[in-house]
C-alpha cells in the first residue's frame, strides 16, 4: 500500500480567489526518495502542508478530494496525531523554532509523546550529531545564523524518527558544502532506515542524483511524475522553468550536435564525466 496517496486534491486558502493546488493525484511508496520541483508559487509548499494536516486544520480554507498518509485520512485526524508519522521541515526555520536552547527545541517533540529521559537524551544527541550542531546545543536558536537554524529545524524532525520526512527547501540558507552534507544524511536515513523522504527543491544540480521519483508541478497541477532521467530530458520540463542540472543540459546539447554518450541521461557531474571519459579516451 502506498504510504501517501492523494486523489484529485484541490485546495483554496481562505480569502484566495483561486486554488493553490488543483486535482493533485499522486502516489508515494514506502521508502521512496521523492523530489518535488516547479516554478515558485506552483503549489509545492501547499502540497507539503497537506501531508501533515496543516492544510486544512491550521490554515482553514477549502480542501476537496482524498488524501491518505500512513493509512490515515488527514482530514479526519488532528495535526498532532500526524506528527508521529510525518515530520515537516519548513522553508523558513524561524517559523518553527521557539525554545530557549537548541537542545530544548530538538527535544520538544519527544517530550510531547512521552519518551523516557534516557531515550530522549540518546535521540536528541544523535540528531544533534547528524546535523553537526552538537557543539552549539546550549545556545539560543534565535542568536544563530539562518543556516544554523535550518540545521536545528532538521534535527528536531530527525529526533522524532518519523516514517515520513517532508523537507521544504531545507538547506536554502546553508553554504553548498553544508547543504550537501545534510542531503547525504537524509539520503542515508532513506537508504538505511527506509524513511520515506519528500524533498522540495529548485536546485536540482544538488539534489537530482538522490531521487528515483520526481514530481514537477506548475500552476497548482502535477505536470510530470516519474523517472527523473526521462522527465529532465524533456524539452517541456525546461520550458516550464525547471532548472535542469548543468550536467544533464550539457549531455543534451552534445547529443544534439551528434555526440551520443549512451541512453542513460546523467543527473550528476560524476555520471556525465564517466560517459565522456569513455567516449573520448583514446582506445
Amino acid at each position, binding site marked *: 500500500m502506498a504510504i501517501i496517496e492523494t486523489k484529485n486534491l484541490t485546495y483554496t*486558502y481562505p*480569502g*484566495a480567489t483561486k486554488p493553490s493546488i488543483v486535482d493533485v493525484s499522486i502516489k508515494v511508496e514506502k521508502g521512496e526518495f521523492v523530489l518535488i520541483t*516547479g*516554478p*515558485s*508559487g506552483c503549489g509545492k*509548499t501547499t502540497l507539503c502542508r497537506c501531508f501533515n494536516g496543516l492544510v486544512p486544520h491550521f490554515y482553514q480554507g477549502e480542501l476537496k478530494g482524498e488524501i491518505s498518509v500512513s493509512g490515515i485520512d488527514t482530514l479526519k485526524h488532528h495535526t498532532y496525531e500526524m506528527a508521529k508519522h510525518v515530520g515537516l521541515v519548513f*522553508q*523558513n526555520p*524561524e517559523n518553527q523554532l521557539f525554545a530557549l536552547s537548541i537542545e530544548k527545541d530538538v527535544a520538544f517533540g519527544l517530550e510531547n509523546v512521552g519518551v523516557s529521559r534516557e531515550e530522549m537524551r540518546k535521540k536528541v544527541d544523535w540528531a544533534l550529531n547528524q546535523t553537526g550542531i552538537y557543539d552549539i546545543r546550549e545556545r539560543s536558536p534565535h*542568536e544563530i*545564523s*539562518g*543556516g*544554523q537554524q535550518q540545521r536545528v529545524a532538521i534535527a528536531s524532525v530527525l529526533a522524532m524518527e518519523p516514517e515520513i520526512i517532508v523537507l521544504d*527547501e531545507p538547506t*536554502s*540558507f*546553508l*553554504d*553548498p*558544502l*553544508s*547543504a*550537501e552534507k545534510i542531503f547525504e544524511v537524509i539520503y542515508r536515513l532513506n537508504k538505511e532506515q527506509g524513511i520515506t523522504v519528500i524533498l522540495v527543491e*529548485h*536546485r536540482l*544540480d544538488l539534489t537530482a542524483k538522490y531521487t528515483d521519483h520526481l514530481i514537477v508541478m506548475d500552476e497548482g497541477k502535477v505536470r510530470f511524475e516519474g523517472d527523473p532521467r526521462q522527465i529532465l530530458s524533456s524539452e517541456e520540463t525546461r520550458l516550464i*522553468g*525547471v*532548472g*535542469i*542540472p*548543468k*550536467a544533464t*543540459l*550539457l549531455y543534451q*546539447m*552534445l547529443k544534439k*550536435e551528434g*555526440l551520443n554518450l549512451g541512453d542513460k541521461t546523467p543527473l*550528476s*557531474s*560524476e555520471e*556525465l*564525466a*564517466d560517459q*565522456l*571519459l569513455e*567516449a*573520448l*579516451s*583514446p582506445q
Partner: protein
Amino acid sequence: MIEATDIRYSYPNKVEALKGVSLTIQDGEFVAIMGQNGAGKSTLVKHFNGLLKPSVGKVRVDGVETTKSSVAALARNVGFVFQNPDHQLFSETVEEEIAFALKNFGFQPDVIEQRVTWALNLLSLTQYRKTSPFLLSGGERKRVALASVLAWDPSTLILDEPTIGQDHEQKEKLRQFIMQMQTQKKTVVIVTHDVEFVAECNPRVVLMKEGKIVADGEGKEILTDPALLELSSIVLPQIAQVFTKLAPLGFPKDVIDLYEAKQIILKAKESKQGR
C-alpha cells in the same frame, strides 16, 4: 564607490564577525561575496549602507564616512535587500509595500504610480498588486522585497542571497536585470551560496572565511580552484566538476560556462575522429 579600510566588527555578544577587512568596490562593478555560513558576509555588506558601523576602521560610501551619515541618507543611494524577506515586509498589499519607500523619499504620486507599475512588471508580480505579501509563496515574497528596493532606483544595490527560493526563470531574469544595471554603470553586490548562479554571471568573486577575505578575483578563476573552495565550504559548479574529472584527457580545468564546455568537448571529439 565603496571603500572599507581594515574594518573590524564585534556584535554585542562579543562575537567578532569581521577581523580586519579591506575592500574597494568601484562604481559599476558586479561583486559576489561568497563563503561559508558565519564567515561574516552579511555583516560586511550591512556596513555598506550604514546599518552597521565598524568597531574599528572606516567605511566610505561615495567618499562619505558611514559614521557621519544616517542610514536614511545612505539608503537613497544604496538599496539593501535582506536574506529573509519576512524581515522587511510589513504592508497590507504588495503595491503599498513597493510604494512605501518612494513616499518616504518624497516622490510625486504620478512618479510613484509609474515606478510601482514598472517594478511589479519587472519581477512578474503584477497579478499580486492588491494581494497581501503574506499570502504569497516564499519565492514571491523575496521578489516583493526586491521590487520595493529596485523601485527607487538606487545607484548601488546590495542583495543578500537573492536567488533563495527562486526558480530557474526568475534567476535568469535576475541575471539579465543585473547585466542591465551594469550597462547603466550601477554597482551590484550580492551575497550568495549559489555557485551555479555565480558561474552563469561570472562576476568578481570575494571569498570570505572566519571574518577575513581569503581570495578576491575573477569568478572563473576562483570557482575552479577546488582547494580554495573547500576551505570556504563551497562546492565547484557542476561544469567545473565535470572538467576536473576530465583532466586525464588533457582538458583545461578552468571551465564554468556551459557553451564553452560544449565547444571544448566537440573539438576533442573531432580530433579523435580525425586520427
